[in-house]
């Protein structure tokens, strides 16, 4: 009887161990699978040509990703520029100033926001942000725009990454020892000075990690961006120009993937590019956050 129980235990131990190892290797498999599919395009043209050429003519097998990379960079930078200050202010308020009841009221709302599917952000962007830009904001700066622009993409993305940044920042701030704040307040600093000179300084690494995570989230977001960015294969020159970020490119052209030679390989290369960048960004910031958590417990 005893033996059967022990046998069961060791069998499950091995099975579970194997599953764990296998599942970790998904990370590697993802990279390898995408690389394998993008070999044809990497063989036919050089990496620098793929990344820095603006010529996008799939029928002539010219795949220059530069406009799409620029499109991605534009929306990502806009979204971070909008989201970071607002999230910082909100996170500081919720963790340092607000009554715990306010915190209890606001945090669930932010969590709910993170559960809203991307496609609904896209619908909202089309209904609210695009007309807002077209009718009210853009006319002050440019002669004509449809509103489907990198700015619209950036705004929608900013709202999508709020919950991520705020939740990480609050965790980072909570990890700053209370004694440090008390010390600062007791020598006569105001609360804002304490925030500025103690809390923020102590949390620099965490803030960077949160930002990098948010960047990688914005980088890969697809459907919402696809719906509001306009999707013209051009390099955006102003906030009100249309852009065509990489994920949108992949999503929009899956239909043609099979019919044009090399096209599927080119799109898989785009996915590989996203994967590599996001993998690195995530790994770096998760390791930073892990260190922070470890240093305080």
């Amino acid at each position: 009887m005893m033996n059967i129980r022990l046998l069961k235990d060791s069998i499950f131990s091995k099975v579970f161990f194997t599953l764990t190892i296998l599942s970790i290797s998904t990370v590697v498999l993802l990279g390898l699978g995408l690389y394998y599919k993008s070999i044809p395009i990497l063989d036919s043209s050089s990496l620098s040509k793929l990344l820095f050429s603006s010529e996008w003519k799939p029928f002539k097998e010219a795949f220059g990703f530069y406009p799409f990379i620029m499109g991605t960079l534009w929306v990502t930078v806009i979204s971070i520029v909008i989201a970071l200050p607002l999230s910082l202010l909100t996170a500081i308020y919720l963790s340092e100033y607000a009554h715990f009841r306010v915190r209890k009221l606001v945090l669930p709302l932010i969590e709910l926001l993170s559960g809203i599917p991307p496609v609904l952000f896209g619908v909202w962007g089309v209904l609210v942000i695009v007309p807002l830009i077209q009718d009210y904001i853009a006319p002050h700066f440019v002669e004509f725009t449809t509103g489907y622009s990198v700015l619209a993409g950036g705004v929608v993305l900013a709202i999508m990454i709020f919950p991520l940044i705020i939740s990480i920042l609050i965790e980072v701030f909570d990890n700053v020892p209370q004694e440090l704040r008390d010390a600062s307040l007791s020598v006569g600093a105001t609360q804002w000075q304490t925030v500025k000179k103690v809390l923020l300084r102590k949390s620099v690494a965490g803030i960077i990690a949160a930002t990098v995570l948010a960047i990688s989230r914005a980088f890969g977001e697809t459907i919402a961006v696809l719906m509001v960015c306009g999707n013209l294969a051009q390099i955006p020159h102003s906030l009100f120009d249309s852009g065509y970020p990489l994920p949108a490119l992949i999503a929009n052209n899956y239909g043609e993937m099979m019919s044009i030679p090399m096209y599927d390989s080119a799109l898989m290369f785009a996915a590989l590019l996203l994967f590599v960048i996001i993998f690195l960004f995530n790994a770096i910031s998760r390791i930073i956050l892990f260190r922070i958590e470890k240093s305080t417990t």
Partner: protein
Amino acid sequence: MRKIEENIFKVLMIMSTVLISSTLFWIIYTIFSKGLGSLNWDMVSKIPEGGFYIGKGGGILNAIIGSLYITVGSTLLGLLVSIPIVIYINIYAKNNSFLANITRLSYDILFGIPSIVYGAFGFAIMVYMGLKTSLLAGIITVTLMIIPILVRAMDEAIRVVPEDMKNSVYALGATRYETAKIVLRQSIPGIFTAILLSFGRAIGDAACVLFTAGFTDSIPTSLDQPAATLPLSIFFQLSSPIQEVQNRAYAAAVVLTIIVLIISITAKIISKNLSKNKI
């Protein structure tokens, strides 16, 4: 001077907090006010009829059922893989061992990989295995995407089970496998929250199923048929130039919003009760 700076920033902080917390209501309000008008019983009880995409009759039942199939299928499959992993890193592996930490790190990273990359990868697997766009391919891809969510959420739920309890189970002579069963039972509410969380992600994701599940006007009857999904149905209908069809996209968005809100709020309530029991 110090007071002024203090006050300026306080006002800014309150403003941004209000702005950010009100976006949720703004989004819900916009979708409801646009979509409720076109929402009717036909929408949720019929599949598209001929000429649906030029404004003729029918509904989006195909997409609702397709989404449910994919979500339920992938959640079940995901649980099958992730429960053993969570048990392994929490009960079999030594606490904070290298393997446990590297597993947690990989899942943190996988959690950050966007669904379009999973979609492209799923497509590659699909082609490799000789599958067509189908319910099965969709389920496999979405499963890959939600395993990190399940693992992370359940890991957190199991980690809060008190060490003392585990020790007393061991002291009674239980094996690790038997301990795992007890610990799992103790964290059922947490596991439930994890399931709902992944359910919400799976039902709302479009980029994963775009390449793999395809789209169809009928309800799939077997795993090798393509399946429509709710987010894609919204996306496709919205890109139509016809007003009628666009309106239905808004109505479909209302349906998706309601489903997602019910899921998230239930998860919230369960996890609240969970923390109540713990303290």
